[in-house]
């Protein structure tokens, strides 16, 4: 599967030389006068499935929120399909991190996913169109939660709740799915299933996801980037020393020990420092 998706990715790049869906040049962004992101450069293309890693507080979520137009740009350029985030964001399917307050909000699964069909602008509540109804049902079934439609959202497990939020994003019929820490409150079995779902969805739409969990992310996404104030992204599925240096203050050896699948190559020579770690599925060398 990995080989297939990798070659698909290669095909996307070589055969479809399209414009980037996200293009970021020299971006600075943050809250108030305090920049969280500094001089970010990043391009994302159609069909991509990018995982962004980085420490907590490193600006991963901020980067997502700038792309969604929720956090303003301080300096630099950010285009989504060549437009400003606010103009383009109706094509973005946003799956936020589950927050504590969601957990006791009185609402049914159906009503949560229906929010994905709420028409923009200031308008009166109207009846649900049959097109919207179909989109909601399709989204629920794609995310595997159609049977939960009548349940109360706050009685679901973390994994189910995450799927419902994915269904809500899918109901908007997005071209790019953006997920913030989708496995943060999900047990390991549901995590595996969640990544299966994302791989399926990636056949039709582009995915950008953020996680602090390098191991989980590196086995599932097509390409990996790293954000910690600055950003390292080379459009490849390789965790480079550069990324690790940016992310973590610990020796690479520590990360390579005691893993079921070796994710990182051992460090032999100084001269291969830039590609010293490459993911290889199921291969124990």
């Amino acid at each position, binding site marked *: 599967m990995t080989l297939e998706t990798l070659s698909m990715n290669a095909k996307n790049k070589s055969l479809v030389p399209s414009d980037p869906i996200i293009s970021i040049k020299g971006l600075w962004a943050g809250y108030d006068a305090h920049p969280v992101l500094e001089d970010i450069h990043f391009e994302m293309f159609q069909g991509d499935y990018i995982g962004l890693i980085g420490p907590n507080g490193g600006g991963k979520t901020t980067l997502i929120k700038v792309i969604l137009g929720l956090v303003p740009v301080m300096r630099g350029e950010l285009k989504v399909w060549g437009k400003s985030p*606010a103009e383009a964001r109706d094509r973005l399917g946003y799956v936020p991190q589950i927050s504590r307050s*969601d957990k006791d909000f*009185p609402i049914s699964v159906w009503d949560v996913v229906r929010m994905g069909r709420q028409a*923009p*602008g200031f308008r009166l509540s109207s009846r649900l169109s049959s097109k919207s109804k179909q989109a909601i049902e399709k989204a629920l079934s794609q995310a595997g939660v159609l049977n939960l439609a009548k349940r109360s959202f706050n009685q679901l497990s973390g994994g189910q709740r995450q799927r419902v939020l994915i269904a809500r994003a899918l109901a908007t019929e997005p071209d790019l799915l953006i997920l913030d820490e989708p496995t943060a409150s999900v047990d390991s079995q549901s995590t595996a299933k969640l990544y299966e779902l994302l791989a399926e969805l990636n056949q039709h739409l582009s995915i950008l996801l953020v996680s602090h969990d390098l191991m989980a992310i590196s086995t599932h996404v097509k390409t990996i980037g790293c954000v910690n104030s600055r950003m390292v992204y080379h459009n490849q599925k390789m965790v480079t020393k550069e990324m690790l240096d940016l992310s973590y203050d610990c020796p690479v050896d520590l990360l390579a020990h005691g893993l079921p699948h070796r994710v990182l190559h051992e460090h032999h020579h100084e001269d291969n420092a830039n590609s010293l770690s490459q993911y290889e599925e199921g291969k124990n060398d």
Partner: protein
Amino acid sequence: MISTIGQVFSYEFMQNALLAGVLVSIACGVIGTLVVINRIVGISGGIAHAAYGGVGIASYFGFDPVLGALAFSLVSSLAMGLTHRKLKDRSDTMIGVMWAVGMAIGIIFISLTPGYRANLMSYLFGSILAVSKTDIWWMVATAIGVILFVVLFYRMLLAISFDEEFATVRNLPVGTLFILMLLITGLTVVVAMRVVGLILVIALLTIPAAIASMFFKDVRVIMLVAVGLGILLNFFGLLLSFQLNLQAGAVIILLAAAVYFGAFILKMSLSKAKL
């Protein structure tokens, strides 16, 4: 002296009080549910207390204190709403300060107002037995306004209450609706002031909705149950205060709080039984 319910409600002021209780319960139950699910109980308390500044200024300059309260309540809704939108989590202190400023202005102007001032206390502690026909019309208009607002914008209100950022990404008018919601809360506070007074308004606004949200999982149902509970609490509170010859507003609130604590214990034992 024990009198029958029929006797109690044969007085015109008691009929007005009962009607006021019903109308205020409608507005409070519906808006209170939004206040509870949006976790803006603090802001609503601030709006209510700041309104006292309007009561003070209006009485000093010889206007109707209700109009003063209305003006102050709407201005503080706007100011606190914008502060909350701008500062988010850090808005707490600023809203607390505005709350205090409103009250302080009220206290100063009322102390400067010459003449008999006892009736000004009724704005702080309520005077449901002194509700006038004009007050009733205000309450009717507010109840209708609140119902229209929620019926017309229900889906968008639900979306911004549940997840403001997702609603923003969907290009819903999050800020406008939030401010509108606070302005209508401000209006509700002013009419509820006649029943329980500014200090206790927050209880009437939130307790019925809080009880209902313990047992029901749909916002519309919670609104309806909160309205029903509010009407019952007003009715029995009024009756009790008449029998015991105590301040009506305070008795209504104490009764509501008793039901709230009872419901809380019931809810806890129910969820324990499930485990």
